[in-house]
């Protein structure tokens, strides 16, 4: 079975799920309806998220890189995820670590950290892309061709961190279908496996991030009620706390050499792992040729880890409150992430939620398995697509800076996505001709305490007295959790629109340039990749259209409409069999236009069905479609998908 797949020259691209972790990364796929983690030739499932840059300019990733970390601390990037979407002056960047950073030449550049490695600068996006490339290779070795990809991110990642992750995926040559939240992915894998319904908490303590998610499992719908966390708290911090103690015990200077820092961090991690089963661990550490022996007891380690573990409680209580749920109402607590193997963490979780956590899942594999299932659903290849649905939320409030530097929330945290909201602002000075818009993310009162996502200016407003101009700002968050903002001025009839996609310091041009240089034959490779992507997209659309023709052909109103749809299908089929990318794209658009009105009617029917419930469905089957459905279509038949207005 597996061999056949590898050697089938016509193998269709297959979707995969990727858990891009702080410490380890995994790639998984669905086979015969069940998700599996893909292993390398040595049967390793975990790829350490470590990237080493060697003197000849080659890149080493994974286990081999991890072995080089101690000897080349500056040239080996460990836990790069902690730096994703973070600026040069972020507190996270200044923590105990062996790296050297390139100075930022401009405020724009300062928005992303740049590692200085062997005289060259690399961004976290590029480092992550190296890890993703290795995972892609791993998947291709098994599947021959990789199609769409779902990558998981911590639920508490902000917009900049998400955008950076998506860019890393593109840079690695992956067709990123979706970013999904790690706890949600875990719940998906767990829920489908156990077939349980109910209210669950997912406690996800990884290498560098902590997430808590409260969600409802209801017959295939996975609805997140609330999420919270800390995107700079994880097992790494326990290592760091222990490393500080080790360095002190060794009598190291206050500013120890980088090699020693790396060594202390690695030793600390080994000790932490040992203390999962043992109550006392001895570790040897080689310094300048001499071997020193350290003994750490579990009690000593727990004393260091306790304040960190307790920090998770704050987020948990808030998530419970946001969900309007008390611990006794939970049907179970699911543990995710390697750091939940620490006995102290398990005891703390049990005490916090008043029940022992569920232990029948592998906390390190479950996220990748969930991602694979979601990739399978989004690729539209499985029947399951009709049974399973993830409803996730916005982890952090989105808002605008208003007068006095106050952050006005436009979309509050834990709003179900996709989401949209509109808010109207006005001028505060006479004859003000421009609006400065500053988009922020976070829960704090003041904009300066929130994460700055984007700034832009809307110009050309005619002079008016203060308070007369009406600026309407629309926020829109898609199912990836990524934000788009538009603004227009209403009163003058002059409509200006500014599209803003928040950035984290890498411009589109920079990402494009990275992409070109990452490919061996630059342009040629890029074109080939775009052709493959256009084909995959076209096949997807054709498949969906054919499926719809089986189910909803009766909603096509005229013979002429049917003819246009059939012709557009035939044209796209012809285009796909050729290799002109532009023709495939144009024909895909053609089918798009031909099916547009019919799609609106089908959506109305779907709504009518959902509202009318099962009774109507039964009636429908018995009496043929016509009347009941038509009545609903009229009632709900405003076909244009207008933006939802929100607050005044």
């Amino acid at each position: 079975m597996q061999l056949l797949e590898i050697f089938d020259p016509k193998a269709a691209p297959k979707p995969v799920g990727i858990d891009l972790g702080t410490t380890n990364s995994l790639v998984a796929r669905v086979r015969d309806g069940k998700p599996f983690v893909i292993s390398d030739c040595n049967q390793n499932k975990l790829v350490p998220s470590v990237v080493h840059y060697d003197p000849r300019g080659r890149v080493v990733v994974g286990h081999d890189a991890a072995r080089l970390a101690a000897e080349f601390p500056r040239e080996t990037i460990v836990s790069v995820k902690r730096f994703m979407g973070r600026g040069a002056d972020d507190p996270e960047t200044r923590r105990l670590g062996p790296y050297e950073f390139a100075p930022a030449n401009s405020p724009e550049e300062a928005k992303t950290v740049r590692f200085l490695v062997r005289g060259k600068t690399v961004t976290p996006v590029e480092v992550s892309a190296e890890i993703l490339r290795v995972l892609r290779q791993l998947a291709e070795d098994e599947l021959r061709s990789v199609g769409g990809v779902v990558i998981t991110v911590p639920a508490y990642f902000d917009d900049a961190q998400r955008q950076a992750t998506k860019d890393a995926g593109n840079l690695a040559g992956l067709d990123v279908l979706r970013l999904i939240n790690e706890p949600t992915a875990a719940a998906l894998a767990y829920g489908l496996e156990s077939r349980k319904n109910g209210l669950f908490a997912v406690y996800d303590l990884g290498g560098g991030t902590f997430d808590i998610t409260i969600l409802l499992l209801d017959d295939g719908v996975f609805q997140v009620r609330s999420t919270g966390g800390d995107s700079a708290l994880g097992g790494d911090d326990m290592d760091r706390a222990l490393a500080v103690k080790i360095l002190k015990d060794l009598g190291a200077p206050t500013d120890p050499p980088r090699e020693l820092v790396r060594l202390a961090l690695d030793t600390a991690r080994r000790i932490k792992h040992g203390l999962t089963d043992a109550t006392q661990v001895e570790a040897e550490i080689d310094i300048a040729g001499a071997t020193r022996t350290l003994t750490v007891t579990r009690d000593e380690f727990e004393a260091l880890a306790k304040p960190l573990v307790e920090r998770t409680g704050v987020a948990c209580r808030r998530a419970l409150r946001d969900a309007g749920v008390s611990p006794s109402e939970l049907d179970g607590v699911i543990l995710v992430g390697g750091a939940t193997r620490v006995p102290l963490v398990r005891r703390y979780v049990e005490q916090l939620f008043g029940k022992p956590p569920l232990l029948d899942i592998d906390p390190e594999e479950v996220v990748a398995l969930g991602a694979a299932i979601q990739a399978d659903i989004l690729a539209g290849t499985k029947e399951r697509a009709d049974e399973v649905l993830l409803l996730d939320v916005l982890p952090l409030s989105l808002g605008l800076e208003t007068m006095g530097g106050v952050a006005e929330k436009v979309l509050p945290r834990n709003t179900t996505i996709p989401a949209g909201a509109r808010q109207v602002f006005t001028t505060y000075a006479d004859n003000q001709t421009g609006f400065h818009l500053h988009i922020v993310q976070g829960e704090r009162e003041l904009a300066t305490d929130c994460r700055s996502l984007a700034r832009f200016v809307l110009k050309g407003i005619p002079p008016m007295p203060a308070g007369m101009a009406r600026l309407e700002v629309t926020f829109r968050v898609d199912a990836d959790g990524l934000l788009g903002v538009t603004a227009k001025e209403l009163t003058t009839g002059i409509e200006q629109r500014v599209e803003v996609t928040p950035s984290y310091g890498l411009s589109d041009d920079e990402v494009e340039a990275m992409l070109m240089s990452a490919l061996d034959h630059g342009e040629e490779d890029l074109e080939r990749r775009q052709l493959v992507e256009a084909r995959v997209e076209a096949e997807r659309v054709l498949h969906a259209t054919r499926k719809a023709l089986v189910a909803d052909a009766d909603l096509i109103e005229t013979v002429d409409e049917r003819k246009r749809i059939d012709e557009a299908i035939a044209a796209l089929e012809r285009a796909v069999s050729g290799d002109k990318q532009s023709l495939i794209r144009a024909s895909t658009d053609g089918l798009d236009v031909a099916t547009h009105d019919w799609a609106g009617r089908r959506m109305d029917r779907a709504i009518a069905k959902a509202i009318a419930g099962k009774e109507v469905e039964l009636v429908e089957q018995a009496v043929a479609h016509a009347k009941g459905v038509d009545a609903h279509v009229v009632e709900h038949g405003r076909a244009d998908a207008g933006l939802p207005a929100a607050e005044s």
Partner: protein
Amino acid sequence: MRDPFETLGVEPRFDIDLDKLAERHRDLSRALHPDRYAGAPAAERRLALGRAIEVNDAHRVLKDPVRRAEALLRRAGVPIGETAEPKPSQTLLMEMMDQREALADARRSKDLAAVHELASATRQREHAVLVKLAHAFSAGENHAEAALPLVGELRYVRRFLDEVSAIEEDLAP
């Protein structure tokens, strides 16, 4: 904005069954969520995205009693918003000020029991207002104006409860 009751296809009333509402939201999401249209042509995906946003927004409005009441008033053609509504009564303002001072004291002295007590008193009051509002709205759209002062009171009470919860969380062991 489209009427949220219509968007979700539920009867426009104040004492709505929140579990049923959530179920309706889930059913509509099953039909409209962008994931359902992952393979569909681009225009169809945009259409689904717009509809899904509308459904999510309607659910968000109807879950919140203040915004649900506002939606009912809007249906009845009663102007709402700070400038359009009558000023809250002097009694209400005085009461809220006293409550606020009591909360500030409890916070300063880290007296969690006192905070809990204020919380439970305010929750009782919230419940009473909700019952009165349901009653006011059940009299029909022509009498919706009677609900206006109650909506004002509910806003104050809910805002106070938010603060109480935040303090409860801060002071929690």
